[in-house]
Every structure is written in structure tokens, then in C-alpha cells.
């Protein structure tokens, strides 16, 4: 009886001390690691503001300078970067809208209806989830570029990449978590199936739609291989393709390339910072199946 109250504060004090040590250890690991991880991005921003003499000066320079606009201008002069940037925005927007529509319609069909072949469709979607894109890229290219002759068209940039299984699974999960009685209620009320989809199901799926849109937009924005294959003329190139074509060319300054990298990356970083919640749920969508 008498030892217990005396022992308790001692115990909690030692526990507080061990917590403190653990916290110190944790930060001793995490702070340097985080700084190391931030370094490439930081350098990208810093170098985008420098002339090449600054980047390759013998000293280490970690602070931004004032040459960003000059670098952007040099970049524009070299590739017509602005045009490719606009191309990227358009492609990503249209791609995202179409892909969201397609995948949510498919996801809806898989939740709402019993139909012949449903198991097969689901098996296909799950099967292609783990299928490397490289299996289809060559014949896709032959089909689009050679057989259809659609190189350097919006169609070629937007339509072939539209198929994605993750979106269907994501939407399917979202719809299946809604109370199905809602849709029965609408049906009894004589609401057409298409209207049930657009007026009831889609509005209720807004958070999922937001997450999916962000992920799809990001994927399209950063897509490199496919546009590299089908956009060969500079006026149809997307920004990553245009920027990639400059890497390794000695006549282009690294400051200009870094400026391009910043222009490509900064919008997505803003999306990440301000829409983090949806972004995260989009990334983890595949894992929770």
C-alpha cells in the first residue's frame, strides 16, 4: 500500500524520459533524411534561377538567384515550350474527363447490374492490373501510327491510354459502398437508369471522383513514353516530351532545362499540397481493394 503511490511518479518520470530519448532519436534520423529527400527538388528550383556559370561554379550554391525568367525565355526560344505546356494541359484535362466518365460508367455497371459476362469483365480488369504496359505499346504504336496514320493528333495522345483498370476498381468500390436501396428508391420513382447514375450515384461519389481525377490528371501530365512515340512534331508535343528532347543537348543551358522542370513540377506540387487528402486516397486506392 505504501510503496505504490511512491513508485508511480518515479515510473512515469522514467517513462517520460524514455519518450524524450525516443523523440530525439526519431528526429535525428528523420530531419537529415527529409532534408536529403528535399534536396533534389530544392536544387531544381535553385538551378532554374541560375545561369550555367552559376550551376557549375566551383563553390556550392544553395540559394536562388534572379535568372528564372531569362531561363524560361531561353527555353521558350529553344522549343516553343509554352505551346507544349498548353498541349499538356489540354491533353490531361480531356483525358481525365473522358477516363473518369468511362471508368465510372463501367464501375457503375459492375455494381448495379447482374448481367451475363460480369465475372469475365471483372477478371479482365483485375488481370490487366498486373500486366505490364510494355506488352501492348508496340502493337498500339503500329495500330495508331502506321495502320491508322494518326501520329501527331489529339486522338493519338488522348484515346489509346484511356483504358485503366484502377479507375474502374476505385469507382466500383465507391458505388458499392453506397446503400443500394437509394438506387432502388430512384428506380421505383421512375428515374431513368442514366439519370440515377448522373443525378444520384455520381454526386454521391464526389470524393472518389476528386481523388480519381487527380491521379488520372497526374498520370497524363507526367506520361512520357506514349506521347514520345506519337508526338513527333514540336507543335503536338507534350511538355515532358519537349523537355526530354533537350536533355543532353549541349546547346541548351541546364538553367533552361531546370526552368522547364520547375514549370512541369510546380503545378503538381501545388495540387499535392492543397488537395493532399484526395491525392493520398487516390494513391492508396489500389491497395485497399
Amino acid at each position, binding site marked *: 500500500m505504501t510503496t505504490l503511490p511512491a513508485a508511480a511518479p518515479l515510473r512515469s518520470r522514467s517513462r517520460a524520459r524514455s519518450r524524450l530519448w525516443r523523440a530525439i532519436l526519431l528526429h535525428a534520423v528523420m530531419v537529415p533524411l527529409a532534408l536529403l529527400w528535399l534536396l533534389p527538388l530544392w536544387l531544381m528550383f535553385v538551378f532554374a534561377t541560375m545561369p550555367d556559370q552559376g550551376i557549375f561554379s566551383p563553390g556550392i550554391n544553395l540559394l536562388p538567384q534572379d535568372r528564372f525568367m531569362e531561363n524560361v525565355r531561353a527555353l521558350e526560344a529553344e522549343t516553343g515550350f509554352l505551346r507544349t505546356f498548353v498541349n499538356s494541359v489540354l491533353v490531361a484535362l480531356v483525358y481525365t474527363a473522358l477516363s473518369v466518365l468511362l471508368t465510372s460508367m463501367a464501375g457503375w455497371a459492375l455494381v448495379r447490374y447482374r448481367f451475363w459476362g460480369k465475372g469475365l469483365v471483372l477478371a479482365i480488369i483485375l488481370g490487366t492490373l498486373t500486366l505490364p504496359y510494355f506488352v501492348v505499346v508496340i502493337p498500339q504504336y503500329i495500330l495508331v501510327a502506321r495502320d491508322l496514320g494518326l501520329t501527331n493528333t489529339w486522338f493519338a495522345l488522348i484515346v489509346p491510354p484511356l483504358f485503366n483498370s484502377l479507375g474502374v476498381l476505385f469507382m466500383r468500390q465507391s458505388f458499392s459502398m453506397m446503400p443500394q436501396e437509394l438506387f432502388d*428508391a*430512384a*428506380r*421505383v*420513382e*421512375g*428515374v431513368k437508369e442514366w439519370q440515377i447514375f448522373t443525378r444520384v450515384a455520381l454526386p454521391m461519389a464526389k470524393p472518389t471522383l476528386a481523388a480519381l481525377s487527380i491521379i488520372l490528371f497526374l498520370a497524363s501530365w507526367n506520361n512520357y513514353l506514349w506521347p514520345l512515340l506519337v508526338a513527333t512534331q514540336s507543335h503536338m508535343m507534350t511538355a515532358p516530351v519537349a523537355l526530354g528532347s533537350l536533355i543532353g543537348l549541349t546547346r541548351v543551358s541546364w538553367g533552361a532545362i531546370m526552368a522547364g522542370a520547375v514549370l512541369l513540377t510546380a503545378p503538381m506540387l501545388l495540387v499535392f499540397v492543397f488537395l493532399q487528402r484526395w491525392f493520398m486516397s487516390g494513391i492508396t486506392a489500389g491497395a485497399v481493394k
Partner: protein
Amino acid sequence: MAELTLRAVRKSYGTVDIIHGVDLDIADGEFVVFVGPSGCGKSTLLRMIAGLEDITSGEISIGGRVVNDVEAAERGIAMVFQTYALYPHMTVRENLSFGLRMNGNPRADTDRRVARAAEILRIDALMDRRPKALSGGQRQRVAIGRAIVREPEVFLFDEPLSNLDAELRVQMRVEISRLHSELGTTMIYVTHDQTEAMTLADRIVVLRAGRVEQVGRPLELYGNPTNQFVAGFIGSPRMNFLAAETIGTIGGGTRFRLVNQGGAVIVLPLDRPPAPGEAAVIGIRPEHVAPAGAGDCDLPLTLDVAEHLGSTSYLYANTQAGEPVVVQAAASDGARAGERIAVSIPAAQALAFDAQGERLR
């Protein structure tokens, strides 16, 4: 006119039969309750009437028209769901008018119908709120309102009160009753709660495992069940069942020995007595078990638990062989666990069933 007829209605998923041929006639303006334990097929049957589930075979007609291949929306029905099924992204007003708007109903008429439903259900003050901001009872009212605006010939209710707490459930039960007498429309109501069935129904349909066990007015089911299942399902606390054996006939009565009761014997007047030696079950409701000496067959019991509710007490007791018997007794007997009590079964209130659970008459 919206009478409703079911003829040999069946439902199966692959080889599994969910509904085994149901025949039923429901009169215009009648309040019919489908009741049964969960999984008995009552909701499936209701959804088949609504047009939300296919009919494997048989025929459903509403107002004289066969509706097997008629879309749900064209059947002249409205449905209230267990989870209320309110559209979460719409206000109450939008919820009520959604179906009409989507079908191009004239705006003035829609407004009139919505206003009328709001008035009937006294939800005028809630019209601009979203479902999230409503209490369970209010949501249920909106769900009913959404059915009313359709001005249907038949209302279908799928366990509408099972998500409410006990007090609200009683209150909403009264309101649904009032609604029925105000509108005079045919109503079909599904529940697993026999109290709801007893209080609301003009007629009750008792279902078990996809079959109709009995159809009848509430008191008919209570007093004259056709089998042991209905006898046990209707009434609360449920009827006591005592294992028995037929001994023979004596005068106009049949003698049964209560097998878990040592020598206790009860004589019931039956027109068609079973053969001696056949197993039987004697049923007696808790409220009919009489004090010792007041009935025709005395039973000594050991009290297990006593629930004193003020106006009445429920005594949960066991026979010598451990067969449970519930007794409804007058208030505060002060009986305690482990105590021995004696009761008696009045033959006039006792029912007999055969080994298959069919009523012996």
C-alpha cells in the same frame, strides 16, 4: 381500384428457391403485414411486388393488371425503405420532388403534391434541410413523404421502423396507422416485429422459409394459429411449448402426458385425436398460465429469473426436467430465483400440435 393478387409466385436464384409459390389476395384499401423471421423471404416478396426483383414464375397483378413485365415505376406503387434511402446530396424538398421532376411532371402539380405531403407529415419546417441534419424519425417521415407524392395505388413498406429507437418506433407506428386511415390506400408492410404486425395490420401474412404459414386477422392468428411456428411467432413473450405424448381418449377429450413433467396429464377436446403413443406438443401462452389449482393441469416449477415490470411480472421458470416455462403473473409477486412455484394450465387455453408442428384440432 388497387387490389393485388399473387398467383403461385416463385423466386429462385439458380437452383435455390427463395419463394415457393405464394398465393395471396389483397383487397383495395387493405393494410397487410408480411411478418416472419429474417431470411423468410418477406422482403424479397415485397421487392418482387415492387418490381425490383424478377419473378421466376407465377403472376402478380395490381388493380387487375398483370405486372410481371412492368417496370417498377409503372406499377402504381411507392416504396419506403428500411434505410430511408434519402438522397444525401439533396434537400428534403428536392428529395420529395426528385422523381416527379425527372419524369417531367408539371411544376405546379409537383409543388402541390410536395406541399400536401409536407402538410400530412408535418415536415414543412424541414424542407430546406439535408437528410444529414434530420433525426431518424424525421428522415423516416421524409421517406414516407416521398412515397406520398407519387400518389400511388399501393404503398410498400420494407421494415421502415427497424432503424428507430423503441420510443420513436411506437410513435411512428401510430402515424403510419393514421396515414392509412387518412389516405385509405392499399398498404403492404414488411416487418420481423410481431408487435408491429399485430398493431398495424388488417391482415397478417406469416412467412417462413419462403412459404406462407398462415394468413389472417391479428387476433385470429393469436387465438387460432394453424401451426406451432405461427403460435410461437405471434405473441410476446412467446408461447410455451411442452413436450407431450398421446395416451388415449377419454370422453370427448384426448389425454396427453407431459413427458418432462413426471406424471402430469392434460385433457384437450379434439375432433381428430392422434393415435396413442404419438408424440405431441402442448402450447400455452405465458398470459394464460394460471395460479396453482385454477387450471386443469398443475405444474411444479423452479423459478430461474423474475422480471418485474410494475404492471405485470414475467417469471422465467423450469420444469423438473429443465423445460423452460414463462409465466405472466400479477404485479410484484416478490418471487425470487430458486424458489419453487406451482402453476396450472387451463385446458381451454391450451393448444396441441403434432410432431410436425401442425395444429391438432
